[in-house]
């Protein structure tokens, strides 16, 4: 009985929380779903399947970084600029040449559909407010490149 009691205690205190952490989205990476597709003469053809996020609060902006964990250059920054409103800075995956990469700043003007929603939740983790939101884009640039897709994120901190 004593052995069974210790087993339950260990399972409840150690194994259970670990399983729960993975089930609820890992170690604070948040949950991200969706993808952005791009094509055109300057960006080539790419798909950004975001699976991780991080709040920009530590970097001084209201917004999130989204990206793929396995591809360090596949990154996107969706944020609310105090002066210009919602904006998206997209780093084109696999476009980096040394310290610089092909990037696009997207605002509403060049897009048939441009929606960026960033919501603060009532939860804070390590003094960072957890963010939920989504973005939906359908943009055609003057260069002829097209960016379109939808991303949803939850629990980003």
């Amino acid at each position, binding site marked *: 009985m004593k052995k069974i009691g210790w087993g339950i205690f260990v399972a409840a205190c150690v194994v259970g929380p670990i399983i729960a952490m993975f089930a609820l989205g890992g170690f604070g990476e948040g949950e991200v779903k969706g993808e952005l597709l791009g094509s055109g003469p300057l960006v080539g053809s790419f798909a950004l399947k975001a699976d991780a996020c991080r709040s920009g609060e530590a970097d001084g902006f209201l917004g999130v970084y*989204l990206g793929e964990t396995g591809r360090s250059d596949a990154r996107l*920054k969706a944020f609310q600029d105090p002066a210009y409103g919602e904006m998206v800075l997209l780093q084109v995956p696999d476009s980096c040449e040394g310290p610089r990469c092909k*990037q696009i700043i997207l*605002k509403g003007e060049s897009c048939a559909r441009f929606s960026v929603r960033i919501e603060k939740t009532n939860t804070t983790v390590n003094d960072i407010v957890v963010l939920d939101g989504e973005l939906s884009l359908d943009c055609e640039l003057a260069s002829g490149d097209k960016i379109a897709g939808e991303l949803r994120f939850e629990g980003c901190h």
Partner: protein
Amino acid sequence: MRANLLPRNKTSRGPLVRKLLIGIGIGIAVLAFLTLFTPLGGVLAGAADSVAGGEVKHLQEYRGSITEARNGGDLAVGDKCDLEVRLEDRLFGDMVQLKLACGTRALYGQREDVGWIAEHTERDGEIVHALDQWDDEGDPGIEFKLDEGAVTYWDKTGLRLKIALDGLPKGALPAEHDPAFVPSEKAAPPGVDAAGAMAAPVPRVSEKCDPGAVCWGPRMDVAL
């Protein structure tokens, strides 16, 4: 009282003036040393020249095309480039300056990386070789070799271009009579090629990140 004050003032002013003169002399000597024997001289001379300006004593102009483009960004083999090789009379002596522009981009000599050329060789008054002095330090650099009809340009981002020159000084023919010549500052508008004919616009990755444009920006390294 007056008789007592006058000599005392005179004797106290003498050493002060002398110290000032010695200080100015040392300052001039240090500046001259730095200018002549250290790279800081280039900076100082450049700063002085940017104010004083320089008279162009000799100018060679070429047009060529990119023959090799390693990590060329939005520049590719076949793109046209203009090169100016100029000898300027500067405050601290003659200086060779190179200006390289490809398409609408000023690659060298017109931005912050003004070509302060360390080595140059002249033959019959013509500059046949010029090499940027900062090439060993990973900074933007350029080398011009007239005999090989080539220019090599590189920058710290990995951009490295080899450009073949046609070897014909532009001065031999007025620019407006050269059908292939398009001044870099007045590049053909989008949709119009060098000869003025309508052509399909060639989009390029911009160096400036304006909204709605594909540009080169600093790598976003964010751990997720």
